């Protein structure tokens, strides 16, 4: 089995009286795509922000590439990247200017060529000279993804990357995600509300509810565990009550 690229143990985050993330533990092996699923407020984004080092955990430990995150933060961040639906690149700069700046920050070699590569990969090469603020929401999301891929990250965190995309572009993005895993061996933590994304892209899924991980497994294992027909049904059930033992409706029938 491949060694863990990301190892999270007992991770907790409390803001005042509110516990956003409550003792979660998971790990992702090299080249694996783990989907972190859950309703709004389940704690997914807080968990990702802790892995990025922009939110300090109240308790627990995060190891990336075998190193403790906070003590080797800069070294680790150079080898990872992220794309979130909650961030944008400066809207008053041109697409290539934004990518050049982040390419330099991440010390990307042969930057000019890499910028062209990622723009081609996300099919927005024709927008290279456009002002970022004039892009559509979908184009902006793809630009964010270009930024996230610039440094060929070994660990990529994608927080709802297809949230504002039409089905056609979302499909292309899913293919890009799989491609960078297959071709570049990237390890990916992927959050989404779109179960189609998850079924198509993720090797395993972890369902979160009220800050806790209720279940982790492959899509098939998850369906079997929850005795549901689709991940969407599991998602709805978890979001509405977090019941994980078995399907109460089926229990009643039997």
């Amino acid at each position: 089995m491949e060694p863990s690229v990301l190892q999270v143990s007992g991770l907790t985050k409390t803001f005042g009286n509110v516990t956003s993330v409550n003792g979660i533990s998971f790990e992702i092996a090299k080249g694996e795509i783990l989907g972190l699923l859950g309703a709004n407020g389940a704690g997914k984004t807080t968990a990702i922000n802790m892995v990025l080092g922009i939110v300090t955990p109240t308790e627990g430990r995060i190891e990336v590439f075998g190193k403790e995150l906070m003590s080797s933060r800069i070294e680790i961040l150079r080898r990872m990247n992220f794309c979130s639906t909650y961030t944008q690149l400066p809207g008053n700069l041109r697409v290539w200017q934004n990518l050049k700046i982040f390419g330099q920050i991440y010390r990307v070699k042969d930057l000019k060529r890499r910028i062209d590569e990622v723009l081609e990969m996300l099919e927005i090469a024709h927008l290279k000279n456009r002002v970022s603020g004039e892009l559509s929401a979908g184009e902006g999301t793809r630009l964010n993804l270009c930024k996230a891929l610039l440094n060929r990250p070994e660990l990529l965190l994608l927080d709802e990357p297809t949230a504002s995309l039409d089905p056609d572009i979302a499909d292309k993005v899913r293919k890009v995600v799989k491609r960078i895993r297959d071709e570049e061996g990237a390890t990916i933590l992927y959050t989404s509300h779109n179960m189609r994304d998850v079924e198509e892209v993720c090797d395993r899924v972890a369902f979160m509810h009220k800050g806790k991980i209720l279940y982790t497994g492959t899509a098939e294992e998850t369906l079997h565990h929850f005795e549901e027909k689709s991940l969407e049904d599991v998602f709805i059930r978890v979001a509405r009550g977090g019941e994980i033992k078995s399907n109460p409706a089926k229990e009643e029938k039997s």
Partner: protein
Amino acid sequence: MNFSTVRALVLRYLYLYTRTPIRMVELLFWPLVHLLVWGYLTQFLQQNVGDDFPHEITFLIGAVILWDILFRAQQGVAIFFLEDVWSRNLLNIFAAPVTNADYLGSTYVVGMMRATVTTVMLAVLSMLLYSFNVLSMSWALLPFVFNLLIFGWALGMVSTALIVRWGPAAESLAWAVPFFIQPFAAVYYPVEYLPTALQWVAKALPCSYIFEGMRDVLKTGEVNWGELGLATGLNFIYLAFAGVLFVRVMNTAREKGLLTKFSSQ
């Protein structure tokens, strides 16, 4: 500090100004207004007030120029941070391999660039309009500028720390903080004209020694090196304090999740 990271962050700022030249208005307009107001007031006083009024009244123009160095340096730090807030780019920066030192280093460079642009403009215009030569301060000008830059950076870090701590609603502090200290900084009048208690406040501010020093140089041609040394010492204390405050507030921001709130507001 990593110089390629600093260069990238500064480059972003340069792109911002070249992409939207209207931003230069903010950099040039207000200093120009101040220069015109104080410049013509100086001319009026020179021509209409009796002989007992100090002949070196041109120090008001010098004060406008030197104050602007401090203000632009402070703005370089504080506005740099706000640019990321406004463009929802803050998380991209702080989730990237950028250390506090890289970030602050780039804000210092930007502050210095902003101060240079306005100082050169004001120096040229004050020469053309009022025959005031900023170079009449000779070599003393260098330590004056150096000290004002440092104090401006320190104030910028304090402003940014307060904005981080209190959130986007505190944005106006980016412009207000320098003006909190201006009445006590002896910019346009000597420290001795302040009430005794406020004179102690003035003496605790390194910039008050610079403005007093400027008036001395214009009046006597002499530099009070002792006071200049005191200003420099105080400046490094303020800079260290501001640096510690900035780092502590950033740590608190990470603990309380404040940085993520900036991107969701």
